[in-house]
């Protein structure tokens, strides 16, 4: 029985945002603020012969124009996530450019208009050099090198063998192989990345306000600017207008901070849409999967083989690590005995890669679900039945997969049955036939997918042996003021996840206090406690756990003071709304307000040896983490595994290739729901994001290395009109590892929808004898494939 957790309550943040009172980076105004615009390379690969800034500098209102060479002379390069010491990347191009859109020079002026005027006046002499766009061509020995000093375009090539792969292949009755492609897309928030930097010479502090969602932000700034970490104050009370991974403007911040320090003025750089898409390095994974699956006549999948080639583009930052997270759920929700995984990260002359929702799990889920559908089709078995036979059963948890992670809890079959029931799957086939009778293609997708949450980031040491990370803690500070009101402090910014609601709900639950009365504030990186920001579906687990822990410590402190005041012992006390009472004599009670006065002002009523005030800090350790990977790459990564079953039906106009989704159902299990509205928003929003990845969104480069989809006219995001009415059902298998049984939910919709749509479209193509496992399944290409040999000639007839 809970008071606030799982109760339908309006999120704390709603009123502020709905009434237009959010505070985003563009709302930050500093006196004398200046503005940056970037000069970007129009070509994918060139030597920079000369950069003439004189015409730009002569424009009234221009403070400065800096080149990559100047910046590099005063900063350190980006840290590589992979062990690639010869890959040296600075925020702006030095000597040569490596992708079209790369920053070549930065103009700072009194207005953004003037900065853009001046950017046009920077004269750059490019000497074109060879380049490579296709990742498989980039792997060839004679390919032009993106980073010459590295000696190869292969940034990472690591093979893993988990379990008896060879034996399983031999004993299996069947083996098939095929290719799956995941197109380069991203999260594309309405708000681009923005930053305001102000170097204060008096205090020696660098203040940063940014639209940031990134672990180790201040640490990276300090390292690159070569200044002590305790001079960097990144403010986390800036609302972030959408992110899901991509708000990592480190290079933007370095440019703004350098300029602010150099000129003693606040500097603002907010990307426009073109800068964001072409030069912001916010593109996500771009993958080729060569899959092999070994299985038996009854549909039992024994072994998976996965060769994943990931096109990292022109940097080697955190993006390639997205090959690592899927190791934690490399079998999906299935009892697969062994896995071969070859993770390959390749540099090309394209925008560098950023983290995107799910951190590589969604592409991998598509590949795994494609395998299951292929197996069922090969054996002429029902696709759902094959899943049922392979799913981990509820009495088998914790279930350890061959790569080392343990799935904490679940009842997958129960969730599947809820989805089957809600979707009326039993009669969906009739609706498929009805659509087919009207000349449409129609098909059903049924997928079962996992969402790892709250991890210890040990994919870092897994893919880079020089990295020794084994934990990603999160903190919360809770204090009760002199009037008995509670304020909680967190060390992160929020990009729409409702962290204030999360923290207030859990503290309210622990202390029997109305969450609406609890203030939640965002500290900055100087005042804050250890934290790793909202990535990897971790905040309900980690920040929720920290809030619970801090509230629990405060409750103990309050109980100690209350027991003293009521002349009893703490274990005789009962928590009631707004205070304590003595369990056996309920008339004896004391309110939090009274206890607050005692703790702050009435030392004579305090227990001996108790420090005054009412404040507690809790730093949450990642459950189940703490071990480095073994030499053969076995490691426990994530404590919690949420599960979802997506069932959808699509209809495709065979002439136009346009896909419509008349039916979409999700049943999911994220353990204990903290706030139902937030979970609902996450799941539906994630599915919408996934539908975009499945059908519309792609950063498409042509063979000249030019981005063809650099604006919203061509990079197509589904609108409300494309997203179906998604029906939801829930199941709750609490996690044994968290404060209230909660698991992660911020990514799950996105981790299921692309697979569901891809499977449904391929089911629709079966009568034509076609298949297409290449996302996004855009109408033009799909229709061309359906038309097949039907050329214009035979369309026209003799």
């Amino acid at each position: 029985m809970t008071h606030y957790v799982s109760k339908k309550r309006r999120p704390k943040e709603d009123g502020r945002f709905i009434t237009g009172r959010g505070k985003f980076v563009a709302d930050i105004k500093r006196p004398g603020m200046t503005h940056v615009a970037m000069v970007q390379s129009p070509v994918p690969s060139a030597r920079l012969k000369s950069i003439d800034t004189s015409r730009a500098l002569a424009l009234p209102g221009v403070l400065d124009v800096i080149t990559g060479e100047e910046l590099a002379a005063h900063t350190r390069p980006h840290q590589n996530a992979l062990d690639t010491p010869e890959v040296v990347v600075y925020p702006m191009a030095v000597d040569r450019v490596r992708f079209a859109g790369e920053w070549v020079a930065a103009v700072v002026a009194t207005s953004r208009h003037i900065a853009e005027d001046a950017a046009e006046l920077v004269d750059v002499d490019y000497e074109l050099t060879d380049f490579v766009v296709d990742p498989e061509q980039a792997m060839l020995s004679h390919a032009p090198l993106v980073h010459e000093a590295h000696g190869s375009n292969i940034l990472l090539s690591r093979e893993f063998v988990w379990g008896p792969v060879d034996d399983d292949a031999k004993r299996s009755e069947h083996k098939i192989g095929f290719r799956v492609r995941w197109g380069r897309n991203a999260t594309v928030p309405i708000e681009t990345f923005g930053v305001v930097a102000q170097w204060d010479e008096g205090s020696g502090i660098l203040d940063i306000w940014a639209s940031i969602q990134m672990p180790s932000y201040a640490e990276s700034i300090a390292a690159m600017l070569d200044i002590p970490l305790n001079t960097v104050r990144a403010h986390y009370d800036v609302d972030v207008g959408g992110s899901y991974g991509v708000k990592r403007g480190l290079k933007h911040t370095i440019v703004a901070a350098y300029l602010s320090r150099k000129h003693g003025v606040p500097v603002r750089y907010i990307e426009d849409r073109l800068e964001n898409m072409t030069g912001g390095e916010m593109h996500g994974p771009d993958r080729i999967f060569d899959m092999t699956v070994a299985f038996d006549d009854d549909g039992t999948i024994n072994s998976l083989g996965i060769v994943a080639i990931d096109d990292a583009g022109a940097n080697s930052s955190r993006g390639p690590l997205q090959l690592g997270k899927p190791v934690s759920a490399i079998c999906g929700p299935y009892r697969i005995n062994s896995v071969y995984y070859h993770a390959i990260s390749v540099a090309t002359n394209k925008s560098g890669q950023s983290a995107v929702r799910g951190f590589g799990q969604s592409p991998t889920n598509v590949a795994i679900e494609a395998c299951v559908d292929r197996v069922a089709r090969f054996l002429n078995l029902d696709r759902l039945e094959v899943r049922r036979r392979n799913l981990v059963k509820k009495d088998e948890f914790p279930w350890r997969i061959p790569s080392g992670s343990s799935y904490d809890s679940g009842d997958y079959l129960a969730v599947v049955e809820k989805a089957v029931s809600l979707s009326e799957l039993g009669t969906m086939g009739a609706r498929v036939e009805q659509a087919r009778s009207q000349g449409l293609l129609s098909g059903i997708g049924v997928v079962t997918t996992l969402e790892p949450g709250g991890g210890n980031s040990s994919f870092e040491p897994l893919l880079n042996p020089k990295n020794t990370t084994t934990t990603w803690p999160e903190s919360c500070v809770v204090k009760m003021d002199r009037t008995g009101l509670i304020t909680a402090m967190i060390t992160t910014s929020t990009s729409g996840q409702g962290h204030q609601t999360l923290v207030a709900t859990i503290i309210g639950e622990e202390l029997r206090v109305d969450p609406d009365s609890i203030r939640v504030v965002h500290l900055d990186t100087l005042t804050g406690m250890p934290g790793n920001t909202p990535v990897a579906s971790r905040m309900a687990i980690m920040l929720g756990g920290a809030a619970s822990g801090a509230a629990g410590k405060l409750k103990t402190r309050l109980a100690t003071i209350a027991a003293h005041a009521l002349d009893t012992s703490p274990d005789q006390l009962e928590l009631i709304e707004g205070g304590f009472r003595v369990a056996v004599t309920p008339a004896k009670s004391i309110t939090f307000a009274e206890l607050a006065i005692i703790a702050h002002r009435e030392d004579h009523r305090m227990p001996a040896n108790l420090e005054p005030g009412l404040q507690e800090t809790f730093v949450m350790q990642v459950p189940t983490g703490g071990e480095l990977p073994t030499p053969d790459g076995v490691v426990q990564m994530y404590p919690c595994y949420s599960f979802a079953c997506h069932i959808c039906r699509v209809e495709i106009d065979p002439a136009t290739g346009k896909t419509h989704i008349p039916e979409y159902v999700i049943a999911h299990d994220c353990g204990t729901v903290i706030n139902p509205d937030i979970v609902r928003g996450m799941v539906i929003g994630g599915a919408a994001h996934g539908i975009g990845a499945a059908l519309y969104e792609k950063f498409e480069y042509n063979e000249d290395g030019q981005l063809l989809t650099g604006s919203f006219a061509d990079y197509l995001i589904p609108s409300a009109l494309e997203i179906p009415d998604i029906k939801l059902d829930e199941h709750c298998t609490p996690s044994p590892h968290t404060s209230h049984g909660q698991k992660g939910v911020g990514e799950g919709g996105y981790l299921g929808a692309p697979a569901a749509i891809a499977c449904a479209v391929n089911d629709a193509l079966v009568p034509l004898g076609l298949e297409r496992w290449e996302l996004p399944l855009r109408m033009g290409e799909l229709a061309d494939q359906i038309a097949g040999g039907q050329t214009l000639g035979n369309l026209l007839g003799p």
Partner: protein
Amino acid sequence: MKSAPFEYVRPQNLHDVCQLLSDSAIDSRVIAGGQTLVPLMAMRLARPERLVDITHVDELADIVETEDTIRIGACVRQRSAERSPVIHQHLPLLSKALPNVGHQQTRNRGTIGGSICNADPTAEIVLTAVTLGATLNLQSINGPRSVCVTDFLVDAMETSIADNECLVSIDFPKTRTKNSGCGFVEVNARASDYAIVAAAVSLTLDERHEKCTHISACIGGASSVPVMTAETQNSLLGSELTDQEIEAAVSHAARQLTPMDDVHASGMYRKRVAAELLARAIREARDDCRSDRHAH
């Protein structure tokens, strides 16, 4: 995405507009709803020295019915036209086309004349104007000029308008008779996107609603300007417009098209889909004509 510097003027009458446009010393562009021009300026793909805003010129904002035509002022908002009972009654094809133009929000700003002067090959209003044989009335300091829309359109995003001319109004011949019908079909990746291909059809049947006595069938998005499908039209004149006859007739249509590949669809796609959409639009027009909507 900040525009290059420009001057902005907002004349109150057509005479002043023409005066301003006649000044050849400065590169002036007329702006009405700005739904294309403003983004182009923001991306610095367009950089006029002066914008002449015509939205405060009252004489450009009316919809006037004459005996044979509906005259739509160049500055009539697309949304106003969409909601106009006069247009609904006399230009049903335009009524069908307009909801496909952008989003309601862009239609609130965008104008009929602006779309035609912009001459986007995929534009629904341009396609409708060609299908219905609209006449454009232009004005310059030297006087008025009228031109058929097909002569006005030169190439993709290019018209025969002179630097000193302003589009004043568009005359659409009235099409609604008790024997007429129309169809408008387009395909796009998302609702409200630019059309990849679109087809517009206006036709008339004989008194008994059996045989086709007139048909105007036009394809947009698959060539630099909308294309009248003369062969298709000829082969359907006098026919009963059976599905089979339509199917056979549209197979000629693709031959005239010179589509481009782009990121959304190949040229082959456009050719194939143009023929299919044309068939759908003809069937829609036929069914529209034969429906009982004319009963009242």
